């Protein structure tokens, strides 16, 4: 039986790519070709410009660089304890024992499962199993991570945490490819969306390009993301002018506001505090929270979330944190973002870009030193 025909795509390094399509569109088939588990009957697969070879040695090399996380975690986690499962890849790559331990420790810390080493998989929740599966791939240090339906069977909070983790990985320079039929997730998360149906590629492009064509989406047995749907209805009532659909709630509210008032609010905007949890301890964060009239707190990344839990901070936002904080700032509320590593600068940059594009002024306070807040007024 033919699962795919006439599929020809090239995927760029360091991007977040979502394969979107209904059941039986050929997403999984395509993904299984990425690391040589399936071999196309005609045509070829290239990685770094080189055609894949299917001899055992080349396949090993490929599978180390292209890690695959299966849809069903029980298919993937076959070792009887978490440690053994995560160590499986490194051990088979022939790493010495000390290196295996280090890699496993690093991978488990990354997915936030330190201390779970001796647990058997049947004592884990669905979200924890997915994390173990991802850790098992991370321990092999792949360049590309392919995830088949990473959020199916997970509750909303677990899904968001997994997607947040994938964002973090992408920031660390990895290429992430997921398949999904969750249009909301694909639209919000992906840099690039590839729409598949019946073993063919219908369209590829940014989320706005792909989901800007309702006919095509209908044909693929999907539905429009709610933001796009609302936007289209507002356009058809003449409340907004037709251009590119907004990417998220923030852009949609901005569009509506600027149409209504002619401009985006110039009232007092709230401050956004950004705390680097590698440098600021829980006590400082708690004292900031008490002192600075912060109404909302959000955390990005596993470290920050773990710290928030330790410090007993109730998080208002655990996903889409930056956008949410900008939204709150525009309505005059102060907020705090807890995050770490490269995501600190990324948050600052994201807020700056937003300010430049919209003309709003949002004060960003970066808390990184232990002595106290490093106030940087009128940072744009």
């Amino acid at each position: 039986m033919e699962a795919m025909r006439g599929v020809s795509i090239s995927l760029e390094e360091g991007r977040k790519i979502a394969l979107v399509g209904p059941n039986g569109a050929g997403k999984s088939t395509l993904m299984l070709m990425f690391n040589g588990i399936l071999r196309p009957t005609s045509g070829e697969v290239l990685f770094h410009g080189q055609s894949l070879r299917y001899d055992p040695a080349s396949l090993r090399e490929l599978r180390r660089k292209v890690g695959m996380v299966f849809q069903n975690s029980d298919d993937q986690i076959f070792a009887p304890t978490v440690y053994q499962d995560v160590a499986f890849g490194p051990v088979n790559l022939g790493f010495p024992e000390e290196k295996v331990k280090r890699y496993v420790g690093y991978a488990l810390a990354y997915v936030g499962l330190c201390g779970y080493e001796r647990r058997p998989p049947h004592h884990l929740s669905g979200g924890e199993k997915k994390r173990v599966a991802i850790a098992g791939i991370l321990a092999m240090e792949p360049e590309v991570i392919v995830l088949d339906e990473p959020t199916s069977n997970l509750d909303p909070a677990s899904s968001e945490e997994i997607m947040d983790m994938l964002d973090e990985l992408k920031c660390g320079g990895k290429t992430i490819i997921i398949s999904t039929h969750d249009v909301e997730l694909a639209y919000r998360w992906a840099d690039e969306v590839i729409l598949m149906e019946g073993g063919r590629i219908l369209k590829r492009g940014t989320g706005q390009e792909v989901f800007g064509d309702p006919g095509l989406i209908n044909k693929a047995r999907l539905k429009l993301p709610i933001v796009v749907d609302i936007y289209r209805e507002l356009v058809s009532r003449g409340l907004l002018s037709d251009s590119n659909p907004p990417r998220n709630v923030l852009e949609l509210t901005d569009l509506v506001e600027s149409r209504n008032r002619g401009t985006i609010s110039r009232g007092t905007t709230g401050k956004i505090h950004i705390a680097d949890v590698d440098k600021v301890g829980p006590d400082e964060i708690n004292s900031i929270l008490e002192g600075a009239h912060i109404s909302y707190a959000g955390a990005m990344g596993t470290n920050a979330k773990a710290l928030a839990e330790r410090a007993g901070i109730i998080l208002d936002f655990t996903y889409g944190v930056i956008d949410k904080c900008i939204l709150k700032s525009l309505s005059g509320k102060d907020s705090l973002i807890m995050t770490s590593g490269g995501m600190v600068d990324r948050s600052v940059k994201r807020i700056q870009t937003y300010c430049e594009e919209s003309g709003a002024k949002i004060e960003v306070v970066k808390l990184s030193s232990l002595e106290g807040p490093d106030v940087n007024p009128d940072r744009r």
Partner: protein
Amino acid sequence: MHDLLDDYTHSNALINTSPRLKLLLGLGAMLICISSATPIAPLFIAITMSLITVGIAKIPGRFYCTLLLIPLSFALLSSGVVAFMHGGGSQLFAMNLFGFMFEIRDDGANLALLLIARTFGGMCSLFFISLTTPMMEIFSVLKSLGLPDFLVDLSMLMYRYIFVFIDQAHLIHNAQVMRLGDAGIKNTLNSHAMLSGVLFLRAWEQGERLIVAMDARCYDGKLVLMEQGAKAKPRAIFAVVGYLVVVEAIVFLTKDIQLL
């Protein structure tokens, strides 16, 4: 959803003691049970092992008792048969059933008693091992004792998938009961046959997926084992050896005592 032996094992209070020591205690007691000529030592082992399992390892007493009922019922049945079969000694009990004489004599009764005591003591020792030592630790001890890798690896994979298939069997069973698959004996048998068949096919498919999953992660014939559990403390070693010596002494001192 399920009440598994394994769940209790992972939450017992002795989980952080040396697996080798626990195995030594359990296996040692078991061997002594089998070698004992009288029921006294095995009964002593049964009582002390139960006390250790419930008192020190903190396994819930209720659960432990229901667990013991299973082997005990078997032991009672079979020793009943043994008691009637063995002649010799004075007659203790007799009855006439449809013209056949059934009688219990001294030797048979003694043997039956010994059988129950041994089973009981042995089961208590076995439950001590299985309720305090996670399978993984037993595997790593086996490996360090020189069992071939492929046997240990295979057992580990089997152990892992037992739980996947328990879940599957449970789900299939629920699906059958939901559609009245348990109405009447004929239906029940039929459902059971179907469940077994489907489970076999699922196991086969899971096996194929397992190979794909292992290949996708560069399988090269190696599975790691967890490190060995905690090292034994001198005090614990002393206690275990002391216990075994005491039990062996009981065996020796009571070897000529006849209960009946």
